[in-house]
């Protein structure tokens, strides 16, 4: 019998609330597929150790001392584009969350999420994008409207539009005659294209990837 070796998902925690950070560390530690390689109370030390930590997943708070979480996200994304970033924050300020998503986060959670919810969110995140609220969706729509060339496909645009108008994932799936998974895939793609929609990042990405 041939066994396939699947490496553990390397997780780094950046959270200034010690209790929450320790708690997340404990909770994630219970999951067989994840390992918390390091945890930091702020972005600065985390960034210094990024190359050695080599995280696959970063769970990051926004309101932190020394460096704001959004800035941290940008730098992490710049250093390690493939790292998946999940925002965990007390704030559900749509603007801040949107900025985090634009910066490179793939999803967000509130800090009151229970352990089970946290682990499920991690699984979902690694598979696809985290759920997008209608408020975020409307901000995403406006963001793409400002850009002359929208990178979204027709279907992605439809999904985004329905979401921004208040439809639920299930409703969207019913309206478009697609599955929930397909809706989530579209949302994930939208997130990714949202990252690139930031021109500066796009240039950096393009340069890095030798696309220019």
């Amino acid at each position, binding site marked *: 019998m041939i066994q396939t070796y699947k490496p553990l998902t390397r997780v780094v925690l950046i959270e200034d609330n010690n209790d929450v950070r320790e708690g997340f560390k404990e909770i994630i530690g219970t999951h067989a597929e994840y390992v918390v390689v390091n945890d930091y109370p702020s972005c600065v030390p985390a960034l210094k150790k990024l190359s050695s930590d080599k995280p696959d997943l970063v769970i990051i708070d926004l309101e932190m001392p020394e460096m704001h979480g959004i800035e941290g996200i940008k730098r992490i994304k710049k250093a390690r584009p493939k790292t998946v970033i999940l925002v965990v924050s007390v704030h559900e300020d749509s603007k801040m969350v949107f900025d985090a998503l634009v910066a490179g986060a793939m999803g967000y959670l509130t*800090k009151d999420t229970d352990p089970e919810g946290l682990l499920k969110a991690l699984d979902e995140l690694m598979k696809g994008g985290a759920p997008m609220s209608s408020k975020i969706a409307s901000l995403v729509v406006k963001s793409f409207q400002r850009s002359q060339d929208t990178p979204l496909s027709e279907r992605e645009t439809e999904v985004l539009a329905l979401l921004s*108008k208040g439809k*639920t994932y299930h409703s969207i799936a*019913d309206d478009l005659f697609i599955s929930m998974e397909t809706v989530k895939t579209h949302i994930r793609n939208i997130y990714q294209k949202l990252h690139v929609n930031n021109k500066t990042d796009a240039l950096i990405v393009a340069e890095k990837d030798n696309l220019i």
Partner: protein
Amino acid sequence: MRTLQFILLLFFVETAWSQRVYYEHYGVQDGLGQSQVSAMVQDHHGFMWVGTRGGGLCRFDGQHFRNFKKENGLISNEINDLVILGDNLYIASPKGLSKLNLNTYQTENLYSSKESVMSLSLNKRNKLYLVEGYYTLSVFDTEKKVSKAISSTPKEPIRSLKTDKNGELYLLTFFQNIFLVSDTTLTKEHGIKEKGNFDFVPVTRDSLYTLEAGKLYLNHPLSKRKSVLINSEEHGFLQSAGEELYLIGHEKLTVLNDRLEPQKDLFTADIKQSPIRLLLKDKENVLWIATNGNGFFKVPSVPVISFNNLSKGGMVIYNIAISPEAIVYATSYNEGTVLIKNNKLIGRVPSTKELDFEYFRNVVFDPQGRPHFFFRRYGEFILNQRGQLEKVAKPAKWPEKAAGVTLRYNSKGEKMYDTSEGLFIASQDSDYLLPTASMVNSTAEIAPDFYAVFTLDSLYFFKHGKAVLVPNAQMDKSHYILQSAYDKKENRLFWAELETGLYLYDFDTSELLNFDTEDGLHSQLIYNLTIDQNNDIWIGSEKGIEKIQFSSANKILSKKYYGKHEGFTGLETNSNSLIADDKNNVWIGSIYGLFELVDSLEEVNEVVYAPVLDQKSFLFDTLLLSDYETEKGLVLPYKLNSLSLSFKAVSQKYPNRAILYYRWKGEGHSWNEVPENGSLFLTNIDIGEHVLQIKNVLDLDESKLLEYSIHIKPPFYRTWWFMGLSVLILAFLVYRYQRWSAERKISEALRLRELKEQAENEIRQQLGQDFHDEVGNRLASISTQTGVLNLKMKNSGAEEKKILNQIQLNARKLYSDTKDFIWTINPESNIFSEIAMYIKDMGEKLFQYSEQDFLCNSEITSEMQDVILKSGDSMQLIMIFKEAMTNVLKHSKASKVEFGFSIKKGSWTLFLRDNGVGYMINSIENGRYGLTNMETRSEKIKADLKMTSSVGEGTEIRIKKAYKNDTDI
């Protein structure tokens, strides 16, 4: 008794004596253009137009001449005839026919004829006929300005054209034939038979007068000729003037009354060497006599009769008295006394060497009516029935040193003497003297035994022989009183003072009043004074006579002045020589003789001419005013607002009486007198339309006002349109400014409000956020730690796990509720679309890991973004739906949960329905499933909450409310 000198007296012999009427003579020396007058006509303004041979045309207003000659536009200075038709004066001259507009004085040459236009005439249809040369009679078309000769004119030299009282036109030839002119047809009517001087006056178609060789005939009917009494070779012409017929000789003028009897030989002596050319009677009944070489005479028929012919040298009358038999005794120093009755001289008492009238003082009449003559040196004489002056002895008790001044009789019939020592009364009982400090000049009896005695410097009152003081009456300064009179009816005393005017003392009110030139008297040098039958006062001064009417309250009601133009050429009157007779005619003695003013009380000038604007010019500019004239007046630019206007009001009968007054119509001013020369200087006339009104003071009902319009145009910046436009612009600017200011204020208020709200929201949010951060982090810590604890306590007892779970749940709930609360602080949370989306996201999150499909098929619309809920409502709605969703998640066993929202007809609706097990609503205990809370919350926000559920058919919760934007300003 002194031997009386024989006095020539023509008593009872009434001298046939002709009255001499008042007349005036005007010639070149008075301004007439030339002394040979060929024509005269009067226009509707009252001006007399006089045509001369060589002096052009003259306009006469009763006092002054204005001449028009070739340089004024006339075709010739030699004028043959004049006629007025409408507003035009047609002028016949050797060179043709011209006309002058009587309103504008513009001249126009109408027709240049080869022969002299000798005469003009109008028939009853106002057709104008010309006699050109001696043989041509033409009709002149005034419209087409064309003359057409009448072919049927007889081949006889034409002497004259005349019209009868019906306006029919007749032509007289030198062959003594009279033709009726009907349009363009001539028919012979009559032939004058006798050779010699001849003339005619047509009366009607059937009668006419003819003068034939000095005899006057009335031909009525035409075939029947009746001779009248006149038979004088001296008369060569016949003319009618007014209602009278005149026989005109070379230097003789005779007027015939309606019985054709000669009335008077009009002033032949004065008109000698004045060949009479024509006669005219004007509208005021003034007779005009035009002469060929001596100008013209004007006989105004004023009611003044002059008796100057009684004396060759002229009488200086200084006393007039009237006897009870109405015989006028008029005395002069040089001539003695003339006696006149019924305007006829009936006698004289001449001055002689023995009885020199130089010392004469006065004549009075005793109770028997006998005249007493009083002389200063000679004393008293009575005129007996033989016409002789008989000496009368002095009274027995005559004061020794007293010199007699004047003799009077009192009401008792006693003689009173004004003397140098006082008033001496020859009483029936006893003679007595009322002494004064100086000579008595005048005495007036106020009541029996009550006298006012005027000396040279004082006024005494004597009552029952004693001097008394009368309050206010006795002046303390010296005056020279010449005359006095007592008004019995009003109990007041008048006296005339030589220099200070007329005085009035009212015994009832003890009021002393003085009237002089400031009160309108023509002079305050008053020589004499009398009261007539109507209690009116007559005063004589150096300027003439004045009649004054006083009211009972001693105010002047009216004044009437008589001077030269009223025929009173005497002017300077003498004291003791003014008296009214029983017919109320006033006799006046002056340095120029004796005059009688008849019909003086009810005299009414029936003909009043309207004033005329004679000349006009700018006051300070030489520009032509004609450029600015309109039909009604003038329209002037504002810079040319000063004018000189000259007005005239004509009265040929009483030129001096036509005084002009002016005022601005409708401007609240009273009438002001126009200066004597008729010129008004109007300076700085205000901008606007004005009407200057001029009236003749004789025009009592103001029916003949002259109105002259003067319109001063404003500068453009004062025109109505400019000012209106300016006002509009200003109003617009004010409106715009106010609007801008209001908008700015509103905008500022809004901005401040927004800033305030923003600041408040920021603070609120920041506080909330800070609170949430702090609390959230704490709760997150609790939640996380209890979660970790739960994991570590896998093998713990159920009770401990339960408690731990509860702690975790509570922490998470508290965290969630705090988060919701913080969100509702956000101003966006009042927007319906935001609330709907929040609740939907809340549900999405709640049901994301459940088996139930959470659906929301409603879509946000732009209308939903404009619906604003009341502050605080969002929190209640979140709590309601959180409760409801939790119920569905936990209890409904539904597979599908749907949340929806809508706006319809002014109401918003939110609902949550599931397809779960449902329940019997009435069976639910109070408080279970949070239903009571939901109802309470919905009541708080005054929304309608409706729950429907039935077993096996799911549950629906619907909440609805009519919306109103609470945040509207």
